[in-house]
């Protein structure tokens, strides 16, 4: 498996490669895989479970197959489109709600409800209304992924420093500029968290819709592989779904660290 150096939440902050640790990690992985294989041979795992060599072979054959990349592309597209839409909608609405008091009070219950609502429950209904289409998938992704961004944007805009508000008022900063250059950056540390959570939810929702419907994508491939009893392929797809999720999480974590350098510095 890929990672030995940095993880989003590495417990040790050392950037240099620690060879002993890497070695121990590799050994651990080998032991886990051997245990898997052993459990399989001794009948502890269900018969249908594929062995380690089969999975590894599948991982390599799957990447050479066109339909994997097509499926992956569908998932990526829907998750990305839904995520970007969620971010745009969530940030704009959230900053508005967070700064306009009457709006904040009126929308509080709806936001609370929407956040706690398991959106995936709406899928059958969405299927009826929109059909098994990419649009339906993106709609589902937005309905699921918009809430963390919205909630975090509201929280972020509430923490705008009164000193900074006075400054912007005295220097007569126009509304638009104020929104972009004062409110948005000030709320950004909170928004970034929402954006990060929203990205994993977007992937989760996209794959979830694919698993449950005929909409093409990585999730659909997993369902098909399972129905065809190609467990090795199913696990290979799962592996790539994990890699995808992990990559997105680490990339966003890193981008956040870079973008918000000022926040960490000014916190202490």
């Amino acid at each position: 498996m890929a990672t030995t150096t940095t993880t989003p939440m590495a417990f040790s902050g050392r950037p240099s490669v620690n060879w002993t640790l890497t070695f121990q990690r590799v050994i651990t992985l080998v032991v886990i895989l051997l245990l898997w294989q052993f459990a399989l041979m001794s009948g502890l795992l269900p018969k249908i479970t594929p062995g380690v060599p089969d999975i590894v072979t599948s991982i390599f054959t799957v990447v050479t197959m066109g339909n994997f990349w097509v499926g992956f592309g569908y998932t990526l597209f829907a998750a990305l489109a839904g995520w970007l839409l969620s971010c745009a909608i969530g940030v704009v609405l959230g900053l508005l709600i967070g700064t306009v008091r009457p709006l904040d009070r009126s929308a509080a219950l709806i936001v609370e409800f929407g956040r706690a609502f398991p959106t995936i429950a709406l899928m059958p209904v969405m299927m009826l209304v929109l059909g098994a289409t990419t649009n339906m998938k993106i709609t589902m992704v937005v309905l699921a992924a918009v809430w963390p961004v919205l909630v975090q944007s509201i929280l972020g805009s509430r923490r705008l420093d009164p000193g900074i508000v006075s400054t912007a008022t005295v220097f007569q900063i126009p509304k638009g500029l104020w929104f972009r250059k004062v409110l948005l950056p000030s709320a950004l540390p909170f928004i970034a968290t929402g954006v990060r959570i929203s990205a994993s939810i977007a992937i989760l929702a996209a794959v979830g819709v694919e698993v449950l419907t005929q909409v093409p994508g990585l999730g659909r491939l997993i369902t098909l592989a399972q129905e065809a009893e190609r467990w090795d392929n199913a696990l290979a797809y799962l592996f790539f779904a994990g890699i995808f999720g992990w990559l997105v999480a680490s990339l966003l974590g890193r981008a956040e660290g870079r973008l918000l350098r000022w926040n960490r510095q000014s916190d202490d």
Partner: protein
Amino acid sequence: MRTLTNVLWRLWLPVLLVVLWWFASANSTNLFVPPLSRILGVMGRDFTNGVLLQAMSSSLSNLALGLLIASVVGVALGLILGETKRLRLILDPYIHFVRSVPQSALVPLIIGIFGLGSASKIYAVALACVWPILLNTIDGSLGVEVGVRRVSRVFGIPRMLYYRRVVLPGAMPQVIAGIRVALPIGIVVMVVSELFASNVGLGFYILHSSSTFRIPETWSGALLVGVIGYVLVIGFSLIDRQILAWYHKSGAR
């Protein structure tokens, strides 16, 4: 007076939306978008004849069992990993990788392996919920004061007692926070696994009604699941606040 205006401020928009929905859908001819009155009527009917209650009890018990397993495993592993630095460092990347797998992708595999029954639902929920609980427990146990740790060592407190009376109470707020994060994930996975394949439960109710074109039932099932999810999450955060308030007052830290 002030609380009354406050309540009105908070309620008017949601109420308005529901009322709008009610009247906008009242004469709906779209087969797929039935009037809200019909949806609620169907929901009331299936509540009184017990169909929904039975579905709910099956879904919720699966959810509760899955969450329970996840909590026990997550807390136990979390305490061990929190206390053994080497192990934690070694497993860290793997935990993060496994956690990043979109939980919904696991559902077909788990159902494929464990079949249609309750067991597969419980495992799916447990497998999805264990990660936030595990990671939070690790964080919590790392937060236990060095001083407390050292004192326990000095007095030769036995290992199990140490875990039970020192680390676990110290990590408790984080553990509860982990369960709070896990709960909505568990609900989603419960719904997905039931929608994927089942013969009981709320997901089955939704699935079955939509495949037999009883559209109002589909809507009412979806709404009910949503409302249950909402009530569970809100309820848990209320309980959570209670527990934590008691916890901080008691000075258990």
